[in-house]
């Protein structure tokens, strides 16, 4: 049970811990990024999307370049041309897909049945490949102190942890899902390396189950509470002639709001836990995000972005990124000076960009 107490300790910022920490810092400014973002979008429109590859690299470069640990910033140097090629191929694939779907009704009946199944199989095989390529490309493009990061995951492992385990989740009524989530995250950490040195983790699956159980219990009591409230107020509101539609209109946003809080609770707790159980050589990592802080940032971001017709997107991006970075730290003990560089390798951006199109978001 010790693994359940450690993240709680890590949540006390700076105090209470005997371990001294070096925090990550973020030096970016919303004003500066605002201009970069506007130029990115403007040029992307004027070049009919071609510039978007450069825009993407510049955005990531800006965020990484302003992320500082022990006096050195991170660096991102993907080649935009490679990304552009990936985007063009992704675009062609999507076009091919929509053409197939358009002609689907003209096929014979067995073909009509076979095509979706075939596509699902292709997707199940293709997806792990995309994930692998995407992670490799992103890690390789990131460096710190002139040492590149790397990802060594293989297609088969990713296929087992993501596709097979998710399918297994269906047959076990979801009971296995926290466990597969744990395996996925553990896998991502252990296959990531800084130069030659791999990250390692001593996290266990127990915490994942605890988180999900807490979430389910809380959700249950909230539902109960809502039902109770409805029971109490319905007679009072009867005089107002509220139609069922109006009641749904009131409950629907409330329901979404609460689900998002629970979702963020799981996400934040597990992130803190996994980071808190990750080491690189002698360096230990910590993350001290708080669910309610993240909830506040998310909701005010959504609200202000909508209110500003999207103009505050760059500001919102900076805000959430800054929060995440500034709640990360590493132990003071151990040195960052002795990590050796890995072998140089060239990897195409293909997987990453296709992955982006299909909205694959794999992260801790």
């Amino acid at each position, binding site marked *: 049970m010790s693994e359940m107490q450690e993240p709680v300790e890590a949540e006390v910022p700076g105090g209470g811990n005997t371990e001294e920490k070096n925090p990550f810092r973020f*030096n*970016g*400014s919303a004003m*500066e*990024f605002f*201009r*970069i973002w*506007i*130029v990115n*979008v*403007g*040029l992307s*429109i*004027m070049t009919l999307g071609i510039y978007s590859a*450069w825009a993407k690299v*510049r955005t990531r*470069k*800006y965020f990484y*370049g*302003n992320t500082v640990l022990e*006096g*050195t*910033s991170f*660096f991102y*140097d993907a080649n935009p041309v490679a990304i552009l090629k990936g985007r063009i191929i992704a675009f062609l694939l999507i076009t091919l897909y929509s053409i197939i779907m358009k002609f689907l009704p003209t096929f014979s009946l067995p073909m009509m049945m076979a095509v979706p199944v075939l596509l699902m199989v292709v997707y199940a095989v293709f997806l792990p490949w995309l994930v692998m390529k995407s992670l490799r490309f992103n890690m390789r493009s990131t460096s*710190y*102190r*002139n*040492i590149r990061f790397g990802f060594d995951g293989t297609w088969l492992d990713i296929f087992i942890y993501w596709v097979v385990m998710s399918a297994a989740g269906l047959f076990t009524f979801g009971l296995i899902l926290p466990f597969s989530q744990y395996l996925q995250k553990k896998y991502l950490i252990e296959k990531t390396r*800084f*130069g030659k040195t791999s990250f390692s983790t001593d996290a266990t699956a127990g915490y994942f189950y605890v988180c999900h159980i807490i979430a389910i219990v809380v959700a249950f009591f909230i539902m109960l509470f809502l039902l109770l409230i409805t029971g109490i107020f319905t007679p009072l509101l009867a005089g107002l002639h509220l*139609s*069922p*539609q109006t009641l749904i209109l009131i409950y*629907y946003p409330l329901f*979404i709001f609460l689900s998002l809080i629970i979702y963020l609770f799981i996400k934040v707790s597990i992130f803190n836990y996994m980071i808190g159980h990750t080491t690189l050589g002698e360096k230990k990592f910590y993350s001290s995000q708080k669910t309610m802080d993240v909830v506040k940032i998310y909701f005010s971001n*959504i609200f202000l*972005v*909508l209110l500003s017709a*999207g103009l505050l*997107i760059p500001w919102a991006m900076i805000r959430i990124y800054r929060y995440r970075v500034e709640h990360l730290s590493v132990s003071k003990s151990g040195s*960052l*000076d*002795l*990590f*050796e*560089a890995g072998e140089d390798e060239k990897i195409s951006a293909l997987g990453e960009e296709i992955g982006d199109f299909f909205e694959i978001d794999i992260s801790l």
Partner: protein
Amino acid sequence: MTFSKSTFHCNIEGNIYDSVVSGKKGGTLTVHETGEVILCGEDGSRSVCSSGDLRIEPRLGNTPRRIVFPENIVFETEDNDSVDSLYILTGGGRFSSFIHIMESRWRYFAAALAVIVISVFCTMKFAVPVMAKTVAFAIPPKYLKAISVKVETSLDSGFLEKSGLKKSKISRVQNNFRFVTDTVKKSGNFDFRLIVRKGGIVGANAFALPDGAVVITDELIGLSGNEKEIIAVLAHETGHVINRHGLRMLLQDSVVSLLVMFVTGDVLSYASVAAAFPALLINRGYSRDFEREADMYALNFLKMKGIDQVNFSNILSRLQKEHGASGGGNSLLSTHPSTKERIKNFMKYSKEGADNL
């Protein structure tokens, strides 16, 4: 930093990282007027190369700048301005310098912002309606049944009540509707049917649903002076149906929501798009162009049947008086083209029509 203009010469402070191990050491980069660049580490290490062999990263905001020496030795500094001078000296990337200039000056920012605003506006104003029209006409009306049924139930439970009119009165209005729709029945696959309801809060009103259903309220029937006026109103609503305005409006609004969702990532709001249709129909009404199109349809119909077009302007002005008193918008009496303007157009058109006859 020391810097002299006549012969380029500068010292830049920063950190050195070799490509073997993650260690960090302080260092100074010196550029001589000969073009020779010397990198001195605090540990006494020295790298020498010609300025042409350096790879200087383009500037991005105030992020630390990297200068890469041969053998992949990296010199990193926060002294961006000095590196900029060196960058120009080595003739490095005009394109990337230009991008940085764009990102750091407000006038380029304003230009980019203008490009964004104009393109979004043009997309919404011109591209989206055309796309919505194409899609709307590609969908056979029988597939619109589901949408209409949903809207109908929603209208019934939220706004409308059972009609309080006499059976004979209703069947007369039904006959009028059949008269209006009989001519189009052969051309389209619409399931034309008239729904008579008590308007309640929406008052004297009429709506057209995508599959051919038309709703008319008791109040509007009561407001009409004669059956010809009702025929004019029903012809107007039929104009909405055959031009597929309902579906087009729904699609256009979906695109807007889609764009908003795309930008914000707020996918949850998608579910509310279709559900919002009844409210949309009542609160906002159709666009100016849609109303004009429907007016034109009604007008042509009346002309074809030899009914005086003044009937339509009569009921419109009476509707305006009615709604002017109670306030609020309504779908037949859309807020966009003012009723006065529409009546004027009518008069003009019917006069021209008379001349042509």
